[in-house]
């Protein structure tokens, strides 16, 4: 693994801290719907931003650090859902990043959120050993599309506002 320049590492650390803060603040909000798995996913703003501003490597590290630390603070079994959802979301965004311009960043977020939901359901099927929970996928997809659109537009807005600040080290791929 090549050495990460200190300025770049610090930038990634700050983004991780922001993502974790957003994640913890959101965890204090009451549930949006009486179904598990439906949430705004505001912390994804940081992941989408990092994917476009820093590149897939740093974005993956930030996501992984946020999921691990977030699960540590939140506790419980949620880490399995977060990890599988996060991994699916990351893979989807990795593929999409090449297809999209920064102005279409919201698409990346929406499809990432949908992949996240699919990953969550996959984990739920494995953990509960009830394939029947897969029927909730459409419900989660509706929420994923809407919340993904919201967080994607947020990320796009952040990206255009922060474009004057060049991320240290620039984009890597």
């Amino acid at each position, binding site marked *: 693994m090549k050495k990460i320049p200190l300025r770049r590492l610090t930038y990634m650390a700050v983004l991780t801290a922001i993502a974790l803060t957003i994640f913890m603040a959101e965890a204090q909000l009451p549930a949006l719907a009486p179904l598990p798995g439906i949430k705004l996913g505001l912390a994804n703003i940081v992941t989408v931003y990092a994917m476009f501003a820093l590149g897939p490597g740093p974005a993956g590290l930030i996501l992984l650090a946020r999921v691990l630390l977030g699960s540590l603070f939140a506790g419980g079994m949620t880490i399995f859902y977060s990890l599988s959802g996060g991994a699916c979301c990351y893979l989807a965004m990795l593929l999409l990043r090449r297809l999209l311009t920064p102005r279409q960043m919201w698409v990346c977020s929406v499809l990432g959120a949908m992949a996240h939901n699919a990953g969550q359901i996959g984990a739920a099927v494995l953990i509960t050993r009830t394939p029947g929970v897969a029927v909730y*996928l459409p419900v989660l997809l509706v929420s994923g599309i809407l919340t993904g659109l919201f967080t994607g537009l947020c990320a796009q807005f952040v990206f255009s506002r922060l474009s004057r600040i060049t991320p240290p080290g620039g984009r890597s791929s």
Partner: protein
Amino acid sequence: MKSTKFWVILLAAVLILSLAASLLVLRGRGGACACVYQDGRLTRTVDLSQVSEPFTFTVEGPAGTNTVQVEPGRIRVSATDCPDQVCVHQGWISTGVFPIVCLPNRLVIQIEDSPPDSNLDGVTQ
């Protein structure tokens, strides 16, 4: 690079499809079933969609008696011996959002989508 229009149409189509599918899923969960738990054990179930005539039954617990009243589609605790009367003040419930809980009598009345042995739902903690 695909045009933005392509993505908008694709995502709108997926949104509409999954909206339709989720309406089917959520509607199909009918047959609201009131489950009466005492000390965490399921002691009685009432299928609220099958109730045509209102009726009452009583539940005995360590702190006295709860009188439970059932009407089509809803259920409540109408009287209790315990001092705080929290379960009575909660009134009628017809959805699974807030269960009726009587702590002194260790009684929980929870509305579930289907009888608890359904293979559709799983719970993890």
